[in-house]
């Protein structure tokens, strides 16, 4: 079974803190994604990576950065957390290339910024 794990299910941070959200997949997927999920807004793509050290901005990259030093690990970084970054964060991964390529999701991290 494909497994995508995220470092924390729940996280509480203070405004201005630097926050790291970690995601690990065990299926040798090339692509990894970070989404933000908010009620009434669905899932919105923050960043994705199609290879080690490669990244592309998604639809809402402002206030976030990412790091992918190893193929299996994709980190989302909030350089200075703000209250409007309180949300559910979902990581996903998939194989690259032709075909419909299912994205597999992690359990999510519910981040609260106080």
């Amino acid at each position: 079974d494909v497994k995508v794990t995220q470092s924390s299910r729940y996280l509480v941070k203070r405004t201005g803190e630097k926050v790291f959200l970690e995601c690990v997949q065990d299926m040798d997927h090339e692509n990894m994604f970070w989404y933000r999920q908010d009620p009434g807004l669905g899932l919105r793509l923050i960043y994705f990576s199609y290879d080690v050290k490669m990244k592309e901005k998604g639809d809402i990259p402002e206030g976030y950065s990412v790091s992918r030093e190893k193929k299996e690990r994709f980190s989302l970084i909030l350089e200075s957390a703000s209250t409007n970054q309180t949300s559910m964060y979902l990581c996903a991964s998939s194989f690259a290339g032709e075909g419909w390529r299912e994205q597999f999701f992690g359990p999510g991290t519910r981040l609260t910024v106080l």
Partner: protein
Amino acid sequence: AQTVTQSQPEMSVQEAETVTLSCTYDTSESDYYLFWYKQPPSRQMILVIRQEAYKQQNATENRFSVNFQKAAKSFSLKISDSQLGDAAMYFCAYRSARGGGSEKLVFGKGTKLTVNP
């Protein structure tokens, strides 16, 4: 840019009945994929069913089927013989078939399905 619209924020169905969730999308591309994902309460998002745009035949997976109308840009999900375990948020998603940087999913805002016993 592609957009996906789910016009029903919430739906409810009686156990064993059939329910249809609506999804429309906007794209100028001719080749793409469409997906329905299910997110049960406090559980991981899982793929329910997919449809390749080049296929005319509607996809079916057990009790789940889709009605894909390419010209109308419509992709509805039908759940037959609804079960209590079908209660979840359902997301419709679009993905370009171009590959490369186009491999991201574009999601609708979701439909919350309640199944009444």
